[in-house]
């Protein structure tokens, strides 16, 4: 829920309330239910609210008894009930029954650091201003569900849930960071702390930062790191533990004063979270699904099976090719980043559908594939290792033909296909598992202009990733290394952000992730690999557990990746007007990001129907989204009104005397 923003000045020159209002207005979609601000000579805080818990009493910024500690907060701390009891026992007095106030007292009790943050179970980003200490404490949840961006500019700290609020200050410039762009075209998203905006950072998941206003310094700390202390054997009580964990994880995520709905893809994970939600919700469950006109992408048959079993009120967002093109510019504006897939667009429309049916909280299944080795990439990694152990075997490589069953079978066969996996990189490379994907994605860079090529010439995203790996990485199994890379390069900055937070909160819908309860992660990371990937059977233990929870057809079905229409979305039968205009040779020459002749070639092939490959689909989405992003943020940014329209339900916390 919510959006937050703020400024901390090094010198006491004041923070204009109008500036805070502009920041809040830029985040209005995240919190349409109310807003508030605070300003003194050094610090300004702004907040827009999506009311979920203590609808009447949870306005922000919210302070302690004497107003010396103030918070602006986005997210949920699910164990706030238990924390409140613990804090009350320690003598704290509460005025609301809202998790926001729990954080204020938790900060007072345990201080701004690991002792406080490690007690929180939830998805959150917040800023706590401690006027006595002259500090601002920024923190973000373990897996990066909720965003927090910041920059230090001219000695002052600026922070916000989305970068657009930073630019709304008029004091922070939006410029391209070519290295951030190069990361998007390697990993699908820039890797925190880097973003695609020069000088704008994303607070890393599992970390915090403390701004010392007197020194004008931001100090960083980590309170949570991913670890994989894999056991040799599955514990006898593993299924019972998983049962207890998923049950409590969902129960915690149903804590809400408004109805909770469920996203239902038709796969195992969302079916599980919806089934558990239906069991535990005091409200009748409403489920929401995306269907595709293209039968290769569609999963409606399985969605209906689950919806029938749960007797949910089921709503469907049908997606034809044109639907993606129609919302794509808005999708890019909300995501604030170029992208290499259109898959966020249907999620944008799905959130809109949920909101139209008065749902502002949904449970969703993300995280399970990373925790329980659901993706084909993990099978591919296991197979590549298996084959490389006997390089002369002609039988083993045939197993590759069983990967990626959703691709054209004409192409996934034969020695060439198999060798492409075997020659993709050395098993001694820490990035071994991901090299084929990184290499495929990097083909987008063939379209770079000479300027961008020169700007990124000195950096290598893969080397930077290798250098960032934690100390324990080398001791983990190959599949746990792959799982780690998937968590940090894809789940957090792309699935939870570009495709997650930004798409749902574009419509004021908060997604909650039962599989991303850190206790579930820690359970999964201790399991032996064969409990997760058994031969080529993914999510083995989860399937065993789900036997009595979801319909058999869903429990047994293989993982289907979520994909959305790409080239046809923009070119069938004719290119959408904005596509023609943005990809025009004059336009691309003006922005200078890609080689205009190469883009023209791509457009020609898209128009003629020749561009049917992954390579060209991703290139089209990459070039188009980058050009849209560049216009929206860099060359033609929206002009903030000098006097933004007044927000409703404004809360103004009086300045301290």
């Amino acid at each position, binding site marked *: 829920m919510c959006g937050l923003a703020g400024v901390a000045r090094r010198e006491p020159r004041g923070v204009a309330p109008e500036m805070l209002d502009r920041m809040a207005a830029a985040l209005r979609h995240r919190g349409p239910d109310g807003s508030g601000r605070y300003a003194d000579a050094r610090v300004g805080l702004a907040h827009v609210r999506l009311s979920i818990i203590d609808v009447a009493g949870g306005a922000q910024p919210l302070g302690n008894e004497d107003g010396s500690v103030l918070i602006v907060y986005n997210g949920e701390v699910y164990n706030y009930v238990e924390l409140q009891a613990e804090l009350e026992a320690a003598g704290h007095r509460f005025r609301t029954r809202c998790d926001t106030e729990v954080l204020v007292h938790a900060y007072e009790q345990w201080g701004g650091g690991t002792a406080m943050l490690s007690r929180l179970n939830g998805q959150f980003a917040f800023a706590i201003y401690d006027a006595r200490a002259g500090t601002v404490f920024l923190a973000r949840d373990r897996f990066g569900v909720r965003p927090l961006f910041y920059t230090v500019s001219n000695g002052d700290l600026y922070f916000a849930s989305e970068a657009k609020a930073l630019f709304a200050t008029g004091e922070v410039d939006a410029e391209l960071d070519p290295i951030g762009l190069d990361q998007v075209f390697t990993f699908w998203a820039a890797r925190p702390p880097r973003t695609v905006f020069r000088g704008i950072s994303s607070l890393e998941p599992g970390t915090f930062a403390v701004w010392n206003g007197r020194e004008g310094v931001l100090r960083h700390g980590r309170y949570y790191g991913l670890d994989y202390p894999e056991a040799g054997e599955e514990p006898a009580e593993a299924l019972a533990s998983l049962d207890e964990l998923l049950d409590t994880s969902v129960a915690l995520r149903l804590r809400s004063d408004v109805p909770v709905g469920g996203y239902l893809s038709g796969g195992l994970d969302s079916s599980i979270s919806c089934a558990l939600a239906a069991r535990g919700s005091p409200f009748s469950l409403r489920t929401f699904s995306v269907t595709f006109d293209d039968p290769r992408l569609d999963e409606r048959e399985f969605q209906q099976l689950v919806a029938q079993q749960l007797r949910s009120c089921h709503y469907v967002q049908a997606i034809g090719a044109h639907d993606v093109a129609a919302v794509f510019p808005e999708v890019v504006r909300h995501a604030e980043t170029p992208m290499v897939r259109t898959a966020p667009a249907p999620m944008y429309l799905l959130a809109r559908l949920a909101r139209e049916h008065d749902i502002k909280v949904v449970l969703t299944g993300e995280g399970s594939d990373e925790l329980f080795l659901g993706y084909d990439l993990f099978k591919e990694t296991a197979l590549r290792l298996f084959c490389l152990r006997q390089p002369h075997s002609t039988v083993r490589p045939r197993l590759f033909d069983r990967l990626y069953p959703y691709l054209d079978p004409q*192409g*996934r066969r*034969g020695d060439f*296909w198999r060798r*492409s996996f075997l020659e993709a990189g050395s098993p001694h490379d820490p990035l071994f598992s991901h090299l084929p994907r990184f290499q495929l994605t990097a083909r987008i860079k*063939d379209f770079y202009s000479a300027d961008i090529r020169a700007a990124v010439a000195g950096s290598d995203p893969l080397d930077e990733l290798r250098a960032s790996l934690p100390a324990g990485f080398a001791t983990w199994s190959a599949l746990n290394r792959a799982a780690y890379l998937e968590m940090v390069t894809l789940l957090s900055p792309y699935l939870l952000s570009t495709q997650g937070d930004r798409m749902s909160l574009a419509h004021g819908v908060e997604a909650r992730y039962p599989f991303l309860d850190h206790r579930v992660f820690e359970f999964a990371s201790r399991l032996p690999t064969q409990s997760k990937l058994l031969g080529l059977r993914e999510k083995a233990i989860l399937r065993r557990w789900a036997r009595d929870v979801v319909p058999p057809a869903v429990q047994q079905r293989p993982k289907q990746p979520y994909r959305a229409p790409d080239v046809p979305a923009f070119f069938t039968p004719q290119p959408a007007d904005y596509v023609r205009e943005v990809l025009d040779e004059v336009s691309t020459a003006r922005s200078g990001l890609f080689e205009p002749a190469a883009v023209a070639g*791509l457009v020609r092939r898209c128009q003629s129907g020749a561009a049917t*490959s992954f390579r060209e689909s991703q*290139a089209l989405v990459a070039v188009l989204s980058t050009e849209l992003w560049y216009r929206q943020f860099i060359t033609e940014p929206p002009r903030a009104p000098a006097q933004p329209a007044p927000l409703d339900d404004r809360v103004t916390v009086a300045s301290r005397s």
Partner: protein
Amino acid sequence: MDETAVLARTRAYVTETFLYMRPGFTLADQDRLLQRGVIDSMGVMELIAFLRSEFGVDVADEDITESNLGTLADIARYVTAKRGNGATSGANGAGRR
């Protein structure tokens, strides 16, 4: 169609499909397509579809090898041999799948 013509058609196809965004890239007939980063595993899929539609050559599983498809010259030789044997039989005599 002789081997030279097949080579020219295949070169034109590879250039306009895989290399139009890399105008400075020079590709020799004997250059390895996989190693030089011209065609990746996904690209092989496209190449095989092209050989079917352009030359009527149905590439059998066992024919998808480096020696048949590794370079432009290999492809031209393979396609010509297949066409000489009838478009649906394997260059190595493996016959219809």
